[in-house]
């Protein structure tokens, strides 16, 4: 299917409607009600999967299949490691409930994250947090909307001053894998970013949701987000939204300027006054990374 045949704006609106009217109410009404959750096995046994997560994915899948039968579908729950691949086809990449731990604990930062790629590039993104009633959506070339209203990101960025490491607040979340080299790399990098003798960033914030962290960057509440262990569905929607506000996503490790959606480790940053300002920020940030994040 050629790109010009797909009305990305229509896809964005369809996903926004699905997020607000079908998925959102389920998340909101069930948040904090699932005390008897399953624990995933192995490295991710802090990462909780609930029955609701699976139910929501089914609803999303069914709805999208009937509206866009020719599109591929990748969801957190149906993903099979080593088998599921992102191709050039138009592909919905979906996290039914991002921030499952938040969802279980009723911490108000669970959301649904609905994205679409074309030629492996994120071109539609919809993030809806029903607790804060916050809908952030975008499609390639069409800008960003907040709760359906166009968001003036240029004005926001021009009011924000220079993007520089020691003036930035950065989203940092330890995630669910809590031993081994990646956990060590994260802990030492956090320390180095925070330390007076290191990056000395203004502050770190931990929302427990990749999608919300990226939405907050797009809105100008955070300057950057650095993480490893995420999957394509955690970042696809946010990536598109960020790009539409002049933001960038590169790899978490030094030198990774060009990465795929399923890179598993990411550094996302906000729009700035120039591309050079962003590149300088990325380089300064990478210089604080101790070790390497690596995922199978």
């Amino acid at each position: 299917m050629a790109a010009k045949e797909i009305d990305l704006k229509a896809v964005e609106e369809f996903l926004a409607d699905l997020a607000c009217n079908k998925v959102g109410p389920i998340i909101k009404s069930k948040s904090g009600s699932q005390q008897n959750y399953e624990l995933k096995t192995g490295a991710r046994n802090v990462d909780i999967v609930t029955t609701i997560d699976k139910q929501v994915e089914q609803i999303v899948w069914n709805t999208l299949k009937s509206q866009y039968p020719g599109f591929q579908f990748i969801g957190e729950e149906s993903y099979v490691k080593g088998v599921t691949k992102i191709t050039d086809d138009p592909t919905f990449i979906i996290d039914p409930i991002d921030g499952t731990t938040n969802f279980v604990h009723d911490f108000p930062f669970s959301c649904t994250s609905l994205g679409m790629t074309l030629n492996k590039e994120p071109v539609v993104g919809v993030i809806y947090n029903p607790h804060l009633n916050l809908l952030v959506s975008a499609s390639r070339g069409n800008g960003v909307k907040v709760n359906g209203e166009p968001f003036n990101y240029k004005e926001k960025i021009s009011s924000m001053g220079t993007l520089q490491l020691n003036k930035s607040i950065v989203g940092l979340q330890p995630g669910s894998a809590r031993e081994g080299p990646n956990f060590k790399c994260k802990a030492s990098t956090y320390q180095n970013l925070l330390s007076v003798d290191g990056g000395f960033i203004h502050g770190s914030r931990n929302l427990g949701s990749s999608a919300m962290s990226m939405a907050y960057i797009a809105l100008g509440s955070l300057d950057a987000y650095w993480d490893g262990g995420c999957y394509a569905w955690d970042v696809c929607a946010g990536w598109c939204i960020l790009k539409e506000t002049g933001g960038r996503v590169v790899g978490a490790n030094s030198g990774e300027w060009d990465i795929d959606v399923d890179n598993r480790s990411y550094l996302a940053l906000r729009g700035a006054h120039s591309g050079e300002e962003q590149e300088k920020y990325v380089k300064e940030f990478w210089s604080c990374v101790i070790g390497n994040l690596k995922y199978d």
Partner: protein
Amino acid sequence: MVLTKEQLKEVETSLIQLAQKEIGPLIKSQSGTKFESYEDKANNVDLVTVVDKKVESIVQDFLSKKYPDFAFVGEEGFIKGETKIGDKPTFIVDPIDGTTNFIHGYPYSCTSLGLSENGKAVVGVVHNPHLNQTFHASKGNGAFLNGECIQVTPRPLILQKSIIGLESGSERAESPGSNFETKLRTTNNLLSEKGGFIHGSRSHGSTAMDLCYVATGLLDAYWEGGPWAWDVCAGWCIIEETGGIMVGANPGEWEIPLENRRYFAVRGGAKKEEQTWFVESLWSHVEGRLSY
């Protein structure tokens, strides 16, 4: 003098009015607009703005007229070594809690208005104008979110199943035994699969909001060093009214004064023994000692 329940409720109502009508709109309209105009305080991460001072003077004027016999302790007027919290009723106020959030437009700045009597928190109002949330309580009168009674759902309280508010704060000097080191090590121990292996940590950069989230049970606990009495006074009262407890961040600190600087709040919705057990389990992962 000991204030009655009715008197405390009256103060609570005045503070809500003040927070929602006077302070909230100011915080909301100015948040994220002062990127280039902050002064340096202790170091250049802890930011105090012109607005912070303006808000404090509005609060102080209002309260000194309405409650001329009460003392006042505010973040901006505080003088280290001189300002003391006495036994008489004392307003303890953080005009804008989460100043870094305020500067950056991150929606977790709020105003935190508390009252103490005999050194204990007896009224607390925390208003976040971005999320339009007002948490409020007074001793013996229960705790409320936007007028609705807060009731923490009873459920098991276990370290490994908990999410805990952990902030890195603004003091980040690395040296052996420093507070920053103690925090990093303890955080690491709590997260590690070989340590506490908690479900998760969360950070929003506002002590008052963290405490309110513990009060409502959205967080199971909050462990921190560095905050001042004005950061915790309001939240402390709200937590106690929802069945939660506040102890010190260092092991063994069961009884602490308002200005302890090291705090550990645990939610309600659990039995006293469960809370005690939770406190002791978390303390067992504290590596080093926080001191201020």
